[in-house]
């Protein structure tokens, strides 16, 4: 089952496409990270997935073919919007009450135990909670609905490092213990390195990179060698090159079995290196099923 599947999905605001020709299929059981610079279309894609927004073109389904925004789709998705909106004048207990009554399923013991553990008093008004606590409240309410898919829009952007860590720990617990699939957008790359098992990179409204993290890492290598020879790789799938004095570093699309030229050393790329390389080069594309060599464009970036 794919937790989200899009086909030629596009969303236009006025004359500009916030999202264009987006075709994706994220399988269940993943923590899928949606990354990209501001304005790349991350929130647009998530809004389409939860039915807050409607496609201008193409289609989007969730949880194995349910139309996004349909009752069946809403029933299975826990969504935490950007800035984690809660009713500021309602108490935490009221927020639990409201969420329980707006959904078919709600795990009250889970919600209460989780809030106790976080030290969030139920009598307190949601508006009086700290930013981290509000985010935890919103997340707890979403998880207590026992969703199959958890959609998080920039969940940690506003949080301090400790709150950020706690928040992601909750997400990971839900993921590993209960098999909740997660789709989250973020521009905090370091956070994703530990949690993401699937990566979608959006740039200027288009999907630039999509695939399982393991597959992506296995198909990219960092080569280090003499700067003078770096040009030899022009025309090959070089994604990112950086030079320091005599040495050059090239991030290339290649497997571990691939040949390493003499005088060069090869190592695996980190997710952050990979993401940064693609973010710096909006033209480069790596999509599952696409012929990588044809699609990847050569580029060179000099630091």
């Amino acid at each position, binding site marked *: 089952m794919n937790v989200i599947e899009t086909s030629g999905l596009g969303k236009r605001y006025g004359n500009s496409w916030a999202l264009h020709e987006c075709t994706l299929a994220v399988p269940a059981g993943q923590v899928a990270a949606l990354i990209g610079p501001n304005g790349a279309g991350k929130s647009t894609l998530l*809004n389409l997935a*939860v*039915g*807050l*927004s*409607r496609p201008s073109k193409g289609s989007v389904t969730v949880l194995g073919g*349910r139309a996004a925004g349909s*009752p*069946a789709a*809403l*029933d*299975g*998705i826990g*969504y935490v*919007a*950007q*800035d984690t*909106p*809660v*009713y*500021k*004048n*309602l108490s935490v207990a*009221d927020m639990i*009450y*409201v*969420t329980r*009554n*707006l*959904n*078919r*399923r709600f*795990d009250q*013991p*889970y919600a209460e*135990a*989780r809030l106790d*553990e976080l030290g969030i008093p139920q009598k307190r008004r949601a508006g009086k909670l700290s930013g981290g606590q509000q985010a935890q409240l*919103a997340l707890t309410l979403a*998880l*207590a*609905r*026992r969703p*199959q898919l958890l959609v998080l829009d920039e969940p940690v952007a506003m949080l301090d490092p400790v709150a950020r860590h706690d928040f992601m720990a909750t997400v990971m*617990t*839900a993921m590993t*213990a*209960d098999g*909740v699939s997660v789709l989250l957008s973020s521009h905090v790359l370091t956070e994703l390195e530990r949690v993401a098992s699937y990566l979608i990179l959006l740039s200027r409204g288009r999907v630039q990179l999509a695939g399982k993290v393991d597959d992506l890492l296995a198909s990219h290598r960092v080569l280090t060698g003499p700067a003078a020879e770096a040009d030899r790789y022009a025309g090959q799938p070089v994604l990112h090159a950086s030079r320091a004095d005599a040495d050059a570093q090239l991030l290339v699309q290649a497997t571990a079995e691939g040949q390493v030229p003499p005088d060069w050393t090869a190592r695996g790329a980190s997710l952050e290196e990979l993401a940064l390389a693609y973010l710096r080069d909006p033209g480069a594309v790596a999509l599952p099923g696409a012929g990588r060599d044809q699609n990847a464009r050569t580029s060179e970036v000099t630091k």
Partner: protein
Amino acid sequence: MTALTVPARPPDDDSSLRPVPWRRMAGVTWRQHRFALVGAATLLGALGLYLWIAGLQLHNAYAAAIACHPAGSPACMGLASTFNGTDAFLSGGVILQVVPVLIGAFIGAPVLSRELETGTFRYAWTQGFGRWRWTLAKLVPLAVLLVTATAAFGVLLSWYYQPYYATGNQAVGLNELCPYNPGVFDLRPVAFPAWTLIAFAIGALAGMLIRRVVPAIGATLVVYAGLAFATGLYLREHYLTPLLTTKLNLPGDAWIFSQWWTKSGTTVSQSTMAQVINPLFERLMPAVPPDQVHLHKLPTILSVQQYLTQHGYTYWTSYQPGSRLWPSQWVEGGWLLVLSMLLIAATVWLVRRRAI
């Protein structure tokens, strides 16, 4: 499994997915709007208590004034002025007309605009209840609640104003109100809740369109005021075809639209009538010395009119009799109800198709 893990989901039953029951929104709506509802209840309660106490005084003053004989004696004049002076600021009714719009606007406008302004619609509209059902399940019970409360308040208002509606008050020097008077027509258990409902519906739609609380309330007040004035000034007189009569001296509860004279089947113009009537006054004046005039019966408009009708003239009046007050109320209540339902339906439709 620790206490903090999510227990396994029941097997998926998508085909038989039943929506979340409507009744569950009742508690949700109450929790979200209790401050506004308690505020409205406090306003109506305090105002109701005041009107009840003031109304008892008013009714007592009226009973005393009407029982007094002979009318016109200094003692009776004193009782009459006591009645006329009791809460005189309420006697025209106009001030109470702000109650429906205040309640309607302050409860109706925030329903959607607050969600849209603070971003909580992203939470509310992605819950399993579904967004258009959520909207309908909020607006309809709130509307029913407001209508019920203001209908009860309208009963109290009808009772309060009862002494003013008695025909014949004027003859004994007491204030009298025609029930069609635009100041009090709306203060009835049909029109009063209907105007509250339309204010609520305008507020809900304005909130959806404007998406900000304060501007939505402001827009509601403006639109409501325009509608209320247009209704009072132009629309209300067309509810029922006016009656025509040649009777003179219609009772005070009749709403008179126009009056004109005819002679031998043709209308006589106003200027011509003025030339007929003015000399008549002189002629009907008793031929006595000026210092004794007050001892005699002086000609009145009525006596002049009676004289004219005995001499070939007919005085026509188009009017709405007092007995048609309630049919008029139901016409007004009816179209306001239909319009309110249309506005609420439009609001739900907008929520359903709105894409951010």
